[in-house]
């Protein structure tokens, strides 16, 4: 047994790998250092001089909110309908996009027996759907459909289909094929296999990606409100744009946004726990 030769090989392999890791690490550090110094230089202000001003803007807003006193809570409530509208935009977009993503993912993963020739086509489709910035699609649709929440919804749904589709198909790639084979052996059709062998396995992951996406979409819808798509974003634009004098309203909107995201986060972890179940202890 040429253990000695093997040892040499392993040692040199490890050395090479360590070298690569070192180079990789140095590269990342170099990118970070040079990138930050370059952008620091390109910025109109500097990082170090600016640190002391970090809390200026939030401070202004918080101060105004503080000065508003109990009326602040009234403001929060006043914005609930707008928040609900944004939630609706995000909700519908995530539902529609998620449903499309489900179909796309099932059609684009070899592991769940998708039809071969379709796979690359669907994958490229998802790439393109993902690559379109929501903002642009929304602006385009606003020109066509007029200002309303619907363009934002369509834009977000379109993007969601691509983004979730990719994530879903990654989940599909990692599933255990044993249940699929078990069902094939019972004579189940493709749809039945997807329904009973694939869906139960992927459901927890799908759900958590879905809820994460819902949260991302709440934020995206808020941003799209900026370009006239309604909801909380429109209010936000007004208050931020107005600046001094509307800081309490800005703060109220933020509290609302934060609460919503926190709520989704909690619901997400609760549902996940529920769906994953206890399983058998190892």
């Amino acid at each position, binding site marked *: 047994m040429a253990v000695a030769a093997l040892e040499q090989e392993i040692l040199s392999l490890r050395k090479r790998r360590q070298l690569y890791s070192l180079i990789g690490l140095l590269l990342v550090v170099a990118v970070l250092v040079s990138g930050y110094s370059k952008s620091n230089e390109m910025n109109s202000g500097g990082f170090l001089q600016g640190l002391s001003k970090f809390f200026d803007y939030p401070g202004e807003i918080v101060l105004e909110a503080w000065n508003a006193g109990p009326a602040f809570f009234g403001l929060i409530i006043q914005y609930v309908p707008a928040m609900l509208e944004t939630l609706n935009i995000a909700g519908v977009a995530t539902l529609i996009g998620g449903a499309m993503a489900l179909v796309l993912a099932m059609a684009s993963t070899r592991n769940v027996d998708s039809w071969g020739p379709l796979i690359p086509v669907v994958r490229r489709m998802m790439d393109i759907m993902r690559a379109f910035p929501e903002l642009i699609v929304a602006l385009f649709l606003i020109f066509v459909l007029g200002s309303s929440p619907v363009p934002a919804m369509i834009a977000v749904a379109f993007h969601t289909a691509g983004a979730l589709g990719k994530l879903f198909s990654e989940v599909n790639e990692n599933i255990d094929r*044993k*249940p699929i*084979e*078990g*069902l*094939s*052996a*019972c*004579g*189940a*059709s493709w*749809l*039945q296999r997807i*329904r*009973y*062998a694939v869906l*139960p*396995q992927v*459901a927890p992951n799908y759900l958590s990606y879905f809820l994460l996406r819902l949260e991302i979409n709440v934020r995206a819808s808020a941003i799209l409100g900026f370009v006239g798509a309604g909801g909380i974003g429109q209010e936000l634009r007004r208050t931020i744009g107005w600046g001094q004098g509307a800081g309490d309203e800005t703060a109220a909107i933020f509290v609302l946004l934060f609460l919503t995201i926190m709520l989704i986060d909690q619901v997400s972890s609760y549902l996940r726990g529920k769906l994953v*179940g*206890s*399983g*058998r202890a190892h």
Partner: protein
Amino acid sequence: MIHFESVTKDFGTRTAVDQVSFTIDKPHMVGIIGRSGAGKSTLLRMINRLTPATSGRIIFNGEDILSLKGAMMRRWQRDCAMVFQQFNLVPRLDVVTNVMLGRLNAQSTLKSMFNIFSADDVNTALAALDRLGIVQEATKRAEELSGGQQQRVAIARALMQDPHMVLADEPIASLDPMNAKIVMDALREIHERDNKVVICNLHTLDTARNYCDRVIGMRDGKVVFDGEPELLTTDVAREIYGADESFNEAATSTAIDTPDASVRKTDPAGAMTPAAAAVV
């Protein structure tokens, strides 16, 4: 009943199953033995059409089942139920549903999409579970069961398919001795009571000797032994496994030789008892 004609399977350059031909003409319980990689699983998977064969024919009731397609193929899959080594249950679904999945082929797709099963299905599933002595686990999730229990659920699913034939791929390989006995008893009972062909891949010779009416030995994809279990002497076994002299005499639990071949079915009554009675 079922007839194999030079069935062959190539994976790239490797021939996993090589010109296998034999006939099963009586509802026998057949054991297939052979070392890891001999092609046992591939053979069973070809029968159930999970793996496409490279060439050859498998004739059942005058029809070449290797040429079936679409709905007909799924129909055949329903008729020859498969029990897997790793059980291949859906871990997150509960036990009854897992068993009822055996009925999928008889179900309309739309109905099954919405998880609709009839009361009749539930009853049949419970009966199958009862027969295997695990009806009290019916509402648990499959993943919460022990290995032996899961394997019995898989057998119940196979029963639910109401098959002509049961294929079992190393059904006891990951079970402890008590569970192994329960599962083998259950298979034997299906064979005896319903008079079905049971083909069973086994890793352990003594199990084959104890439970099967006929043993087929495979090596490197070829059938190298085919006969009654009595003919399976230590030498023949060594030949099948390609083991050398140092490998002998109860060295491990699953020794290749048997100190006393006559022990087979010394307690047939025990083997016939419904499995449920054997455990708590």
